């Protein structure tokens, strides 16, 4: 059990590192508008992600959801179904 938790923690750490690296490629003048009316600068978002607080976790989840969809082909499937709905529904 301890090994599983350890692996999960390591994975979470790697996710955080990955998202921070991605955020650091953006201009510091970029702001993210969030649902509660907050507008968070790139640097503030990096802090949230690093702290793994609620805002940071939400950002990580959105990023990982997209990266997983890209990896497992779900994204391509969705793009295809929007571009050619008739063909996609008959497949």
């Amino acid at each position, binding site marked *: 059990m301890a090994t599983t938790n350890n692996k999960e923690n390591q994975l979470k750490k790697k996710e955080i590192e990955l998202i921070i690296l*991605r*955020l650091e*490629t*953006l201009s510091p*003048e*970029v*702001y*993210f*508008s*969030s*649902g*509660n*009316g907050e*507008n968070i600068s790139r640097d503030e978002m990096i802090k949230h992600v690093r702290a793994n607080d609620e805002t940071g976790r*939400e950002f990580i989840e*959105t*990023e990982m*959801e*997209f*990266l997983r*969809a890209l990896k497992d082909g779900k*994204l391509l499937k*969705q*793009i295809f179904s*929007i*571009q050619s*709905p008739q063909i996609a529904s008959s497949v």
Partner: protein
Amino acid sequence: MPTRVAIVTNPSHDIATEYLYSWSQQIVANVISQSISFDLHELKGNNVTKENLTKLIEEKNPHLILFHGHGGNNRIFGFKTNILIACDDNEGLLINKIVHSLTCDSGEILGPKCISIGTKAFIGYQKEFKFAHLWGKTDGQRQTDVLAGMFLGPAFEVNKAILEGNTVELAYQRSQQMYVNNLQMLLTSPNPTVSKVYASGLYHDMVNQVALGNRNSSF
């Protein structure tokens, strides 16, 4: 032909709702420039309250309501914390209307509830509506903010298509298609300043946008 009546709410009380306001103005001007006529009533700033909305709906009996603001899964907000529409309270105001709720989350519970009691169609987002921007200080800066435009363009395509008289189905398809185009541009652009990081928010908005009710209805 009877006059088509629409109501738009623009609380415009923080940077996110200021962006929605600036884009709303731009889209309406664009549609009017095509000689498409309709009677548009706007509630703006601190006038976006439940009382004013109720009065306006009862007076004008609009066919279409465009909400631009914050939201929750069972509510739509107006100016600051003023709740305009809430489940099990006043969602009956939206009966027989086409609704575009450009707010967070309201497509999750409020949208289906509205459809169950007779709202014609409800387009909205089941989760948070995300966008990134460069903090434009004027209408002009916000309207030409290319980064914000990647997110707001597809969202406002719904308004444009519906005001032009298209069906809800076509409005939804045009919006979804624009999300796809923007995603493809982000993912395939060789331009190093076009960051793929924005794709996650765009993808999130695309998959969480819903069109409920009678998709063949039109304004």
